[in-house]
């Protein structure tokens, strides 16, 4: 990057590297398109995701029902995109929850240091050791199966890596001169963490967050597939695929029930992972 003018910030340079990564950029626009259509399609579609027409159950894709109908005679297209809304919402909200928890926990642990730091990180180790998905299933099965519980629980079980990253960064930042200078000028602890340290650790945190989104969406789909996540009349990609898998039989193959929500999920997972990998490569300090 020798031709870069002197005045660019590291973030701008990283974004420039990201824009040069074709796979990541294509993925970025594609997943944006999927995200926007999950919002638009249910709005413009003449069908409602709940209204059942039982005599038109499991119809193949046609002019009226572009992606066919589900076992209850509901339009699969509007359901697939509406389900996508829920899947995206769970992914983003759970990631937000995990970010808040992880940053707060990691920053506290790293900033306080000493014995408390050791203790707090031991707790994270213990959480890593637990069979994560089982804990989620236990709590989900008991707290009830609704949207709020799904993203809160998933968020509460995916903050550990973020907290480790943040703690490591805070530990090294604590020793930097500019932090000492800020402290010398009388900046209080909260402002020190929020104004001076946080902007410096945002890069890796955001990168990890973009990789958390697909992983949480996958977990949501997994739970919903088992009937332990989102429940009717709401729907999500996992639940739709589960319905489709349940309708498979040797007499007639209702392929559209699996293929359409499945490809939306597959495309989204692929794109989000590519964007996350692209950001990771672009922001990776060692690669410069």
């Amino acid at each position, binding site marked *: 990057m020798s031709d870069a003018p002197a005045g660019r910030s590291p973030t701008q340079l990283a974004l420039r590297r990201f824009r040069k990564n074709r796979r990541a950029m294509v993925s970025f626009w594609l997943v944006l398109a999927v995200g926007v259509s999950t919002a638009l399609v249910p709005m413009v579609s003449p069908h409602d995701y709940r209204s059942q027409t039982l005599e038109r159950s499991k119809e193949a894709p046609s002019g009226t029902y572009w992606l066919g109908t589900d076992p209850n005679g509901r339009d699969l297209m509007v359901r697939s995109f509406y389900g996508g809304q829920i899947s995206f919402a769970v992914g983003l909200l759970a990631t937000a929850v995990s970010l808040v928890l992880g940053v707060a926990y990691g920053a506290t642990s790293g900033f306080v240091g000493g014995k408390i730091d050791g203790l707090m990180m031991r707790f994270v180790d213990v959480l890593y050791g637990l069979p994560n998905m089982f804990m989620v299933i236990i709590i989900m*099965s008991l707290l009830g199966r609704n949207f709020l519980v799904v993203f809160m629980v998933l968020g509460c079980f995916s903050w550990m890596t973020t907290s480790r990253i943040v703690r490591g960064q805070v530990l090294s930042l604590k020793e930097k001169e500019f932090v000492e200078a800020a402290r010398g000028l009388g900046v209080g602890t909260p402002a020190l963490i929020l104004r001076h340290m946080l902007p410096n650790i945002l890069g890796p945190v955001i990168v990890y967050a973009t990789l958390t989104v697909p992983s949480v969406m996958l977990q949501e789909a*997994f739970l919903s597939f*088992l009937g*332990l996540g989102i429940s009717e009349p709401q729907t999500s990609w996992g639940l739709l695929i589960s319905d489709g*898998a349940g309708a498979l039989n040797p007499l007639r193959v209702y392929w559209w029930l699996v293929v359409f929500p499945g490809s939306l999920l597959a495309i989204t997972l692929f794109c989000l992972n590519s964007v996350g990998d692209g950001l990771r490569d672009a922001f990776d300090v060692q690669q410069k």
Partner: protein
Amino acid sequence: MLGFVLKRIGGGILTLYVIATLCFVIIYFTPGSPLTGERNMPPEVLRNLQRAYNLDKPLHMQYLLRMKGYLTGDFGLSIKYPGKRVEELIFPAFPKSLQLGGLAFILAMALGIPLGILAAGYQNKVPDYLSSSVALAGICLPNFLLGPLLVMVFGLYLHWLPVAGWPEDFSGEELLKLLLPAFTLAAVHVAYISRLTRAGMLDVLHKDYIRTARAKGLDAQTVFLKHALKNAITPVLSYAGPMAAYIITGSVVVEKIFNVPGLGQHFVDSALARDQAVFMGAILIYSSLVIVFNLLVDIGYSVLDPRVRLT
């Protein structure tokens, strides 16, 4: 070595205890009773039922009774299947899950490692692209999607493979029933292992000792498979621990798709029906499996790499 194993077994028992306690507490403090799902029943019946399941006793008594049960090998009574002991439900199902998981594990290793070696050997040539496409598919086709797709293509359209069930004997035709579920369970890990093997091989192939081996005239195959692979494989081995945990969770879904009468079915059913004793029993069995497997991986690690000291 022995000290290490004993220490880890102690730690494992402690983890199991924590998990059991956590489950118990969460279940206890969840509003509503698993018995109230039934139709309206006379209060005497309800009271008798509560007594039978120890639900009439105070928290600490229930807890102590449950823990004492686990120590003496008594897992309690199922609520969903009245009159059935948890052991009667879980123990016949567990070996099936274990066999399916074991097969998936072997399949993941047996497909993933050679694919990775090929990719490293033909870097940026056809086998390399092949293996990265497999890895890509692994990312975006989770098992609960791949399973139904495979059923559709190989079972319902092509009629090549049976789509569901569990082998009743050891004849070839019956054993074919294992192929789709095991592959579905293994697919993601084939992708991961091949990437890890490839990266490990490429890393090792630049080392001096490989150049020495080549210089003294060893043929490429010996260098690749004997000298390089042994060191390249360590990241794969450290993936084996988490992989076992993923396979166990994955098997819950795969058993549902392929109608395998394994532990996963009981696990999901008991979670939905709030059948406490079965649920806790299944969780404990799954968790012990993860713990045992991680121990085996660590031992394997020290065998493969003598520099790793077990402490």
